[in-house]
């Protein structure tokens, strides 16, 4: 009996510990959402309270007005255009490239695959300066092009992810399709693509996260307010020198987190599996 009660005491302690860590994990976010409903004057009075004294929804309309005559509608639209293009580009190009590496024998394959592995370990930020200079010379600065176009040429991480996935598909399926008269592209489109859908979804979700959060790229390439993404807009919105309306700021920050969090809850399985099998960093 004593053994048994000690046992459940241990379980209770673990539950308590988990709840505690959960509170620490979520408190900042709940606090931000709560602050977005507080009157501006109340945000930093009894700041730790999570329940607004009176619910003030006007922060959302105030915040939405944005700045320089440009509403958050524009910033959201810009972000969505960029993110959708990047995700499409990544999924299309990376699946083609991964298939090429996984299934087709060709000359110098080892060399080209080596370049994929090399860029996997090379942090992209290292070449940001020369990349900027090149895009500047091309006249692409202050357009979405530097943020979108590279996605259509593959990214090492997702190529590797999809490649690993394709390798688990039995080669006999390709053979059978070939005998049935399928071309290389036919095999890719009709046999492989449907089978790697889970991996494609994982890649799409992570690319969504990275481009939704992409702050540095937007910061250096988008210099005009009408081109700003939410990240850059939020940053300027929170400019300490201009006496920020913090509740409005938190309202817009809350809105900006809704799409990523929504996606997380819808695709949780893919995200957790994707990260644990490939080690993508979120």
């Amino acid at each position, binding site marked *: 009996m004593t053994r048994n009660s000690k046992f459940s005491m241990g379980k209770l302690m673990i539950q308590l510990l988990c709840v505690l*860590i959960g509170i620490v994990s979520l408190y900042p976010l709940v606090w931000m959402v709560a602050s977005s409903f507080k009157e501006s004057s109340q945000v930093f009075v009894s700041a730790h309270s999570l329940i607004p004294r009176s619910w003030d929804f006007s922060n959302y309309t105030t915040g939405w007005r944005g700045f320089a005559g440009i509403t958050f509608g524009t910033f959201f639209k810009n972000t969505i255009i960029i993110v959708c293009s990047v995700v499409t580009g990544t999924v299309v190009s990376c699946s083609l490239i991964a298939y090429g590496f996984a299934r087709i*024998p060709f000359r110098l*394959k080892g060399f080209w695959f080596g370049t994929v592995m090399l860029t996997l370990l090379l942090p992209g930020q290292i*070449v940001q*300066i020369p990349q900027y200079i090149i895009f500047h010379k091309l006249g692409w600065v202050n357009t979405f092009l530097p943020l979108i176009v590279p996605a259509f*040429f593959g990214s090492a991480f997702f190529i590797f992810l999809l490649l690993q996935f394709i390798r688990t598909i039995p080669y006999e399926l390709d053979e059978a399709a070939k005998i049935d008269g399928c071309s290389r592209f036919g095999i890719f489109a009709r046999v492989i693509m449907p089978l790697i859908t889970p991996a494609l979804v994982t890649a799409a979700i992570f690319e969504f996260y990275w481009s939704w959060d992409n*702050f540095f790229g937007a910061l250096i390439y988008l210099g005009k307010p009408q081109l700003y993404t939410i990240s850059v807009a939020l940053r300027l919105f929170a400019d300490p020198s201009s006496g920020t309306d913090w509740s409005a700021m938190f309202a817009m920050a809350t809105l900006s*987190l809704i799409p990523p969090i929504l996606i997380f809850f819808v695709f949780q399985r893919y995200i957790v599996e994707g990260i644990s099998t490939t080690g993508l960093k979120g």
Partner: protein
Amino acid sequence: MKQKIGKAGGLENGAGYLFILPWIIGFIAFTAIPFVALFYFSFTNYDLLSTPKWIGLDNFIRMFTTDEKFFTSLKVTFFYVLTAIPLRLIFALFIAMLLNMKIKFVGVYRTAFYVPSIIGGSVAVAVMWGQLFGLNGAVNGIIGAVTGTPPNVSWIANPDTALWTLILMAVWQFGSPMIIFLAGLKNIPESYYEAAVVDGANAFHRFVKITLPLLTPVILFNLVMQIIGGFMTFTQGLIITAGGPLDRTLFYQLYVYRQGFEFLDMGYAAALSCFLLLIVAVLTALVFKSSSSWVHYESKG
């Protein structure tokens, strides 16, 4: 030529190159050419408007002889990587072990713990963090509620605590390494532990003799990814503390950004990036080299 020949016989150069063509173009245009350009620009003085002027090693000499901020940013970044990364990994491993136990609501906890990481890189979270740790922020509010008097300090504006608030934020976002650890833990056969229990091993022994050794490949992976990521820290430093106070949070990448995009000193920024490349390459090589002595690979088969 040691190529794997397809069962249909022979190389299919045309089809192969057609499929990987996007990669070849992208690699040359967005990686190889910028990479070569990086070295070229690092030997020049270039303000983006006039033509680059070749100045030999001047940028590198400037870095090591006259530029104190260069050393400051190196120090800040190394301190951050050496504290935040081990803390985050230890915390992630601890929590992964917690979640690996058979407890109720495990799915709920996993989700709750992981959410901060999923949105971690966003400006919204950085802004929020700055306000939490401000003079009138919620953290001081909580301390005040517990002790009676809120401390009269802004954690992000105080030179002694600013970097620590960013380290705390990094630890708070322990979710991604946690999930990877969790996957690694699930791969360890239950029977190993059962056998150890029969042999009378206590929890500590089981952790040191079974869990840690079998987890070393995952630890290596997490370590390499987190070190590389740690050296690229930027958003937090710009949004939360703007590199201050007294340059105590002047991350290396933030300094590169300032030189390049605020002072338009592209040549110098390129030289700084070159040096960062060297640091990351050496550290990664060191970790991989040392790994042969501590990473335990189970022979599969």
